[in-house]
Every structure is written in C-alpha cells, then in structure tokens.
C-alpha cells in the first residue's frame, strides 16, 4: 500500500469520531497495542528527548525498505507514534522522503506535532526522514 493510501485510510478512520475524547480513546488503544521495543533499543542514542515526553526511535533497512521501531513514555504519544509507523513502515526510502504526512493535519493532530509542544514527535518525524535519506545515500 502506498503512503498516500495508508494516510487516506487513517483519515477515514478518524472521520468517524465525533468527539475529541473518542479520538484520544482510539489513540490510547493504538498506544497500548504498539509492541514495546527492546529495552536495549531504549538507548540514549535512540532517545529523542522532549521537555514533555520522551520518544525512542530505531530503524532498520532490509531489502530496499525501511522498518521503524519506536516507543514513548506517554500513551497518547505512543498512539501517534503507532500511526506514524503504520504510514511509513516497509516503504522504500524515496517514498518516505518524497511524501508529506498530510494525515496529521487532517485528523487534527497538528498541535501535537508543533515544535513548541516539545513532546519529541517533531524530532521523531525529522529523524524518520533522515534515516530514509541516509539509507538512500547508502544505495547510491
């Protein structure tokens, strides 16, 4: 599935929620379902420290595709992390670099990804793209 198609799917899913608290309920559910990463991966190297919450991000490159693993100490942030992983996991580096993440705006999570929130998410998205750029460069 393309990054665009997955984003559209998420947008449609979220359009069913009438209330913000329902959206958060769903994000909490996603956050709880996101597999915990290895304690070893919760390293300083993988830590993206926000003032408000912490995010850990690790990546792997296998057969031309990027695979992310991530975690956060806050559940709603984990839920948003789960969405980002759902959209970008298993995609070729070029796709990750070229596509913008318009779903964030569309489902009303923009404020959670604003630089002033300091929750680690903005830096996480940036780091995901940087991983893709690095992997693409490796391919030449």
């Amino acid at each position, binding site marked *: 599935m393309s990054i665009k198609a997955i984003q559209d799917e998420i947008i449609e899913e979220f359009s069913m929620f009438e209330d913000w608290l329902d959206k958060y309920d769903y994000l909490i559910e996603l956050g709880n379902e996101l597999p915990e990463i290895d304690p070893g991966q919760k390293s300083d190297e993988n830590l993206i420290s926000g003032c408000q919450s912490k995010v850990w991000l690790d990546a792997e490159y296998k057969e031309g595709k990027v695979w992310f693993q991530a975690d956060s100490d806050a*559940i709603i942030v984990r839920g948003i992390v789960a969405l980002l992983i759902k959209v970008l996991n298993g995609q070729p580096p070029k796709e990750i670099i070229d596509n913008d993440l318009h779903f964030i705006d569309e489902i009303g999570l923009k404020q959670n990804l604003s630089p002033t929130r300091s929750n680690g998410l903005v830096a996480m998205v940036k780091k995901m793209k940087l991983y893709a750029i690095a992997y693409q460069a490796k391919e030449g």
Partner: protein
Amino acid sequence: MNFNIEKIRDDFPILKEQVYGKPLVYLDNGATTHKPQVVIDTVKEIYEKQNSSIHRGIHYLSEKMTEDYEEARDTARKFINALSTTEIIFTHGATSAINAVAFSFGEKFVKEGDEVLISEMEHHSNIVPWQMLCERKHAHLKVIPFNDNGELDMDAYKEMLTGKTRIVAVNHASNSLGTVNPVKEITRLAHEKNIPVLIDGAQIVQHGEVDVRDIDCDFFVFSGHKVFGPTGIGVLYGKEKLLEEIPPYQGGGDMVDCVTMGKTTYNELPFKFEAGTTNYTGAIGLAKALDYVSGLGISNIVAYEQQLTEYAAEKLAAIDGLKIFGNAGKRISVFSFHLADIHPYDAGMVLDKMGIAVRTGTHCTQPVMDHYDISGTIRASMVLYNTKEEIDLLVSALERVRKMFSK
C-alpha cells in the same frame, strides 16, 4: 468576607471564552494570569490617546506619558512597601530582573572562590543567571535542599551561610510545589552574616501581601503578567545603597547623565538601570493591575484563596491514585500532582480537550522533579478569580481521565 466572585469574574473578559466548544476552566495561573478589563482598557487608551516616548520629550504627550510612568513607579513602590521610588526599577519581568542583579551585583561583589546560595526549589530563572555568574567568576553555586514535603531545610541553610557566601537568592513561593518560604527568617539569618538576599517574588505578588521592608530583603523581583498586568514588564526592587554601589548592566539612552566618546557618566537611580525606551505602556498597565488587586483588598484575596486552597487540597487528595508533590505547611493555591501512573502529558492533553487548562511537565523546575525522581507533574494553579465549581470540574475531569487510561 467582602469578596464578590461573580463580579470579579466579570472583570476578566477572557474567562467567558470557550475552548473546543466548552467553557474555559483556566487553572494555569502559575504560568500567567488574565487581565481585568481596566488593564486592557488602559493599555488600549495609551495607544489611542497618549502614546509618546518618556523622559526626554518636550511636548505635551511626552510630559503626560512621563508623569503617568513615574506615577506607575510609585504605585509599584506602594504595592511592595518600598521606601522610595529610586528603589523601583522597571524590567522586562522577573527573569530579566534576576539577570540584572546576577550581572551587576556579581560584577561588583563576586570573586573567584566565592559562593552563591540558592535553593533546590528555584525556577530555572533563579538558577541559570547565577550559574552563568559563577561560571564567569569561577565562583561556586550552593543549593539549600528541601524535604519531601517541599519545605526548605533551614538547618542546612544556616550551615551553608559561610564567610564565602556573597548572596542568597530564593523564591518567596515555589511555582511547582506551592510552598511559601519563610523569607523573613531567611533574610534575617543571612543578614546576621552581612549577606544580602534576593527574593524571587514571581509567585507571591498575586496571592498575598508583600512588604519588602518587613522582609528586609535587599532585592525583590516580580513579573507584571503574573499579577494580572501586561506581559513584558516587571519590577526589580533594590535597597538604594546597594543599587548605588553596583554598576548598570545595560548601556543605552536614558540611563546616562553625560556621554562623550571618552567617558560616560550614569544617570541617577532608578534611571541608571533603565537603558533604552522602557515599556512604559506595560508599566502603566501594571500599575492599573496592582491598583485592581489593592482595590479588592489583599486580606480579602488571602482569605478567599485560603478557602479555595483548602477545598482543592481536600478534593484532590480524595481522588483515587492521586499524589500531590509538595505539602508544605504554608502554601499558595498551586498543586503539582500525579494521577495513578498516567503520564502528565497524556492527562494534560485530555484535560485540554475538556476545556481545562493546566500545565504539565517540569514547570521550569527540573531540580524539583529530580528531587522526587519524576519526569514531570500535572499542575493546577489557582488565583483570586477561580472558584470551587472549577475545582469540582477539574476533579470530575480527572476521574474521567483515570478511567480512560485504565482500560
């Protein structure tokens, strides 16, 4: 008690706002307070009818503006019971006031090997300027610890006052624990050893009476925006003798007496410390805010807030799994807490969508968080316009948050 809360709430137009279609419950007053209509009108009127640069103008508006600005200085003087307007310096806020003292006092009096004494419960703005000073001068920063109730260890404090201590800088009230510190006693003990004291009053002026002459502190700072005044204005109080002795920290217009390319002589107090065009609009707005507070009666505010604080303490403590950090005997209506094992950021995000504004995180007091080995708290901070009904709304919202995250 003569305290008409409905009328008071009417004075603050923002309190009628809705967020996400829900009535705003604003419990983030530790960060900033809202402005009564009289302050908003004053600032608006200045720009509409009076605006002119102060002190050096020859024309009517400038004269009038200067008069009002100096009158604002006198209002600030009276509010904290300083002796003279020469002791009242307008700054950008409490932070810039502390920076000014850390620089100017530091330049004059702090040398290599000296010690600066602060406490473990300071806001970053009363830590970092002193760290910078110590780095510059190769001096040492010493820290008075607090106990788990959030009370300063006064025995440790006494022992930390040494022949090397050059200044003590502590807050009057803690922005994250709510503790009201015994500033008079702190000052008395330091003065026994001829050590000057700076009191960070950013979290007290909106809650209670401040009398700098009674405290006898050497410096006292506060921010206008935390006491219902405009942003970008604050006050540095300093005893005249000390202010005379220390050099200005910024150069520019208005702070000078005579400038030649060879040498500059400085203006007298308080102008020596007010370089450049000052925030006169802010100062006059602040004076209006202080008049507003005085008009309500400080003792009325204290009595009302005490009821509110007791009510909040009782209601919050009754919530299953809620833990309050900071249970000092004397406190302001600021509560830092955890709700079960829910991440404060998660709780804050959900409360926000319910129309309840709290703050989450470290509240610019990371050492306080380190003390309890936590990464942050949820903080609800109330002032004179908050109500028991709002606390009830917070409590039921917290119950709902707990349910959402316990699934």
